[in-house]
C-alpha cells in the first residue's frame, strides 16, 4: 500500500487528502459542507501558498536550504505598504515597490551570508528573522501610522464571477512560478544546484550566484505575500506573519519537494498549502479546544511526513 502511495505524485495525494478532509469536516459539522466554505478554504490556502513560494525555491536549491525569516518579512512587507501608501490607492504602487525592494534586500543579505560567509541557512535566516523583527519594532515603536489602500482590499477580497480576487492572483502566480521553474535557464540551474553543487559547478553553472538569487527571490516573494495579506486582514499588527512560518515549510515538504533539494514543484506546494489549511479548518470546525487542535495537527503532520518525508539516502 505504501509503495503505491509513494509512486503517486505527492501533490495529487495532498489534493485528494484535502478533498477527503473536506468531506469529513462536512460530516462532523453540517453547514460546513457548502461551496462558500470550500472557496473560503482555498482563499486562506492562497496566502499560505504565495508565502510558501519563496520557501519552495530555497528548498529546491538544496544545501539544507531553508528560510526562517519568511514570517517577519511578510509582516514587514505589510507594514511598509501600510505606511508608505498611507491608505491612498494612488500610492499603492509605491508602497508595493518599496515592500518588494526591502524584501529583496533582506533576501540578498541572507544569500550573501549563506554563500559568502558559509553560514548555514538555518542559522543565517534565523538570525535575520530576529534583525527584521527588531527593525520593525525600532521603526514603528509600537505605533503604525498608515492605512490600507481601498484598491488593494478590492483586488484581494473583491469577487469576479463570485470568485475572490486572491484566487485569480494565486493562479497567475502559479503560472509565473511554473514558468520560472520549467522554462527559464535559472530554473534549470536551480534544480541542478539542488541535486549536486559540484556537478553544477563543473558544468559551468554559477552556483553562488544562483543561490544568492534564490534567497533574494524568497525575500521578495515573502514581502509580496505580506502585501496581499494586508489586503485581506486590512489591519497590521506585529505578529501578522508569525503563523505562516512553519506551515510554509510543511506545505513545501508535504507537496513533495524533498528537503535535500533538487526535486519539487510549485503545484506541490499549492496542494500542500491546501491540505494544511484544510486540516486547520477541520480542527476548528470540530470545536476542539486549542490543546486538542495542537495535538491533532502535530499527529497529522507526522503521519504525512511518514508517508512522504522519508529520507532517500542509505546512510
Amino acid at each position, binding site marked *: 500500500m505504501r509503495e503505491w502511495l509513494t509512486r503517486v505524485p505527492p501533490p495529487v495525494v495532498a489534493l485528494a487528502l484535502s478533498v477527503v478532509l473536506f468531506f469529513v469536516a462536512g460530516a462532523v459539522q453540517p453547514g460546513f459542507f457548502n461551496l462558500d466554505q470550500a472557496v473560503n478554504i482555498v482563499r486562506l490556502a492562497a496566502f499560505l501558498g504565495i508565502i510558501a513560494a519563496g520557501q519552495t525555491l530555497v528548498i529546491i536549491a538544496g544545501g539544507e536550504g531553508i528560510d526562517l525569516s519568511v514570517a517577519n518579512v511578510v509582516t514587514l512587507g505589510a507594514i511598509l505598504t501600510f505606511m508608505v501608501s498611507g491608505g491612498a490607492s494612488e500610492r499603492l504602487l509605491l508602497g508595493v515597490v518599496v515592500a518588494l525592494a526591502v524584501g529583496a534586500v533582506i533576501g540578498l543579505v541572507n544569500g550573501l551570508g549563506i554563500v559568502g560567509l558559509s553560514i548555514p541557512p538555518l542559522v543565517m535566516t534565523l538570525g535575520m528573522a530576529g534583525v527584521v523583527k527588531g527593525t520593525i519594532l525600532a521603526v514603528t515603536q509600537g505605533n503604525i501610522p498608515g492605512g490600507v489602500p481601498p484598491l488593494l482590499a478590492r483586488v484581494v477580497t473583491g469577487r469576479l464571477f463570485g470568485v475572490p480576487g486572491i484566487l485569480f492572483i494565486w493562479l497567475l502566480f502559479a503560472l509565473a512560478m511554473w*514558468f520560472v521553474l*520549467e*522554462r*527559464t*535557464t535559472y530554473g*534549470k*540551474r536551480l*534544480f*541542478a544546484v539542488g*541535486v*549536486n553543487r*559540484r*556537478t*553544477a*559547478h*563543473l*558544468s*559551468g*553553472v*554559477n552556483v553562488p550566484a544562483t543561490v544568492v538569487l534564490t534567497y533574494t527571490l524568497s525575500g521578495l516573494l515573502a514581502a509580496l505575500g505580506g502585501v496581499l495579506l494586508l489586503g485581506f486582514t486590512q489591519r497590521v499588527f506585529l505578529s501578522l506573519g508569525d503563523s505562516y512560518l512553519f506551515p510554509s515549510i510543511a506545505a513545501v515538504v508535504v507537496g513533495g519537494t524533498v528537503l535535500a533539494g*533538487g*526535486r519539487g514543484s510549485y503545484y506541490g506546494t499549492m496542494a500542500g498549502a491546501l491540505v494544511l489549511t484544510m486540516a486547520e479548518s477541520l480542527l476548528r470546525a470540530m470545536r476542539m479546544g486549542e490543546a486538542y487542535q495542537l495535538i491533532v495537527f502535530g499527529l497529522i503532520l507526522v503521519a504525512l511526513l511518514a508517508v512522504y518525508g522519508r529520507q532517500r539516502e542509505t546512510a
Partner: protein
Amino acid sequence: MSPPLLSATGVAKRYGAVRALVDGAIEVHAGEVVALLGANGSGKSTLGRVITGITKPDAGTLAIEGVVTHVSSPTRARRLGVAAVYQELSLVPDLTVAENVFLGNEPTRLGGVDHRHLTRVTAELLALFEGVFTVPVTPLTVVQRLPPSERQLVEIVKALSRKPRVLILDEATASLGGRQVDRLFQLVGTWRDRGMGLVFISHRMDEIFRVADRAVVLRDGATVGQLQLRGTVERRAAEQKLVELMTGGGEVGALFLDEARPQTPAAAEHGAAGQALSLRGFASGPLAPLDLDVAPGELVGLGGLQGQGQERLLLALFGALPHRGSMSLGGEQVDLRNPRQALRAGVAYVPGDRNREGLLPVRPILENLLLPSWRRYGTPLRMRAARHDAAGVATELNVRYSGLDANVATLSGGNAQKIVIGKWLLRRPRLLLLNDPTKGIDVEAKEEFYSLLAQLQADGTTVLFTSSDDAELLGLCQRVLVLQDGKVTAELSGATLDRNHLVAASLGAR
C-alpha cells in the same frame, strides 16, 4: 586436510532486473592468497560483499571452517573473523586515526573508552607501514589531514585491528603509491605464512601475479574456473588462460595484453602558432611549472601512478582549480578562472567520479545532457529545439535509453558515462579533458568510446586524458606525459611508448 577457512558456494544475488551473481563460489584455505578476477559486471565485487556481510544473498551457502553460517551483517562477519578493505573508506574525517581504527570496536575500561589502549595498539599497527608514509601519520592525527593513499592504509590497519582470520582486499591498492604497495605485499606474505587466508580482488594482472597463490575467475555472475599461480607456471600462458576464462574464450579484448590495438589518427603538424593548447610555466598547487604544446587533433595521455597530479592538471586547465602561468588556446591567451569561462572558451572536462561530479542523479536525461547549454535556448526555453538537440547527441553516441524524460539513474554505467560525455559534445569543444573516462565501464562500452575518440580526433578536437589503465594509454595516445609527484618525469612517444618505459617512468626509475 582441514576445511577451508572460508567457503562460499552457489551464491546468487539479483538487484531488480539485474542478476549480479548467478552461481558464485570461492574457497580460501589458511595460509593462501586467492585472487578473485573478473571483468566489470562479472560479480566479483558482489561476491566480496556477500562474504563480508554487507550484502545479503538470495541464495547460496557460506561456511567458516566447515561450519555453515549466516553472515548477516558486517559486524557478524567481523566476529566470525572475516574483515575487508574496500576502496570506499569507512573513515570519519573529524576523528583521529586511532578513533577511526577502533570505531565500533572501542576497548573499554571502567565504563569508558580506554584511550591509552586504543592509541598504543594503533601505534603498533601503524608501525607496520613505517617508512612508506608520505606524510606523518600518528594515532592522534585527524584523518581529514591525510591524503587518499594514507587513508587507505589506515583502512587496512583498521581491518587488521580486528585480528581477522580471513582478510579481503577489494581493489585496495588503487590509491596506494608504489612503495606502499610493495610494503603491503610484503606484509601479505607474512600474514599468509602465519596462517591467514586472503582474498585479493583486483584487475591489475601484475599485482595478482606478485601476490596470489591461486586465481579464481568470475564471468557473468558465475565462477568459471581457477588457476594455480604459484609453482612452475609460465606467466604468459597463465595470463592468456585467465583472460580466456574472463572473456569466455571469445574475442580477446585489449584489456590485459601488452600490445593494445593502436588508434593512430592522421598525423598532426607541430607548427609553432597553430597549437591547440600551449602552456608556459603552468603550475597549480603541488604541480610543478609545466611547458607543453599540443597540436590540434592530438590525443595526449597523462600517465603515472594514481594521484601524482594528473587530475589536478586537468582541473586547473578547466579553471576549476587556481593556477598560475600562461595558457593559450588556438594561439590566443586565455585566463580561465572558473568552469564557466572554460566552457565559453571551448574547453570541456569529463570527471572521473561520474556520479558525484558528472551527473545529476535524480534529474531526467534531458536535463543532464543540456545542463551547460540552456542559455542557448532563450527565455522562454525553446523546449522542442532542446529536446531535438539532446536526442541527436544521444543517438550519435548510441545511448541505450528509454526516453529523454527517464531518470538518469536508470542507465547502466556505460550509458551513463555516454551522457556525461554527450553533455559536452553538444558544445563541440575544441579541447576535451578526460579524467579516467572508462573506469568501471564494460568492454563493449569501452570499444564504443575508443571509436568515439578516434572520430573526435578526426574532427580536430584536441584531447588530453588520464587513465588508470596503462594499456589504454599506450594503445590510444601518440604521446604520454608521465607524472610523478606533480612533475613530468618523462614524455613517451614512438619508440619509447611501451609498457616498460611507462612503468619505469611512473616509478621514477631510469
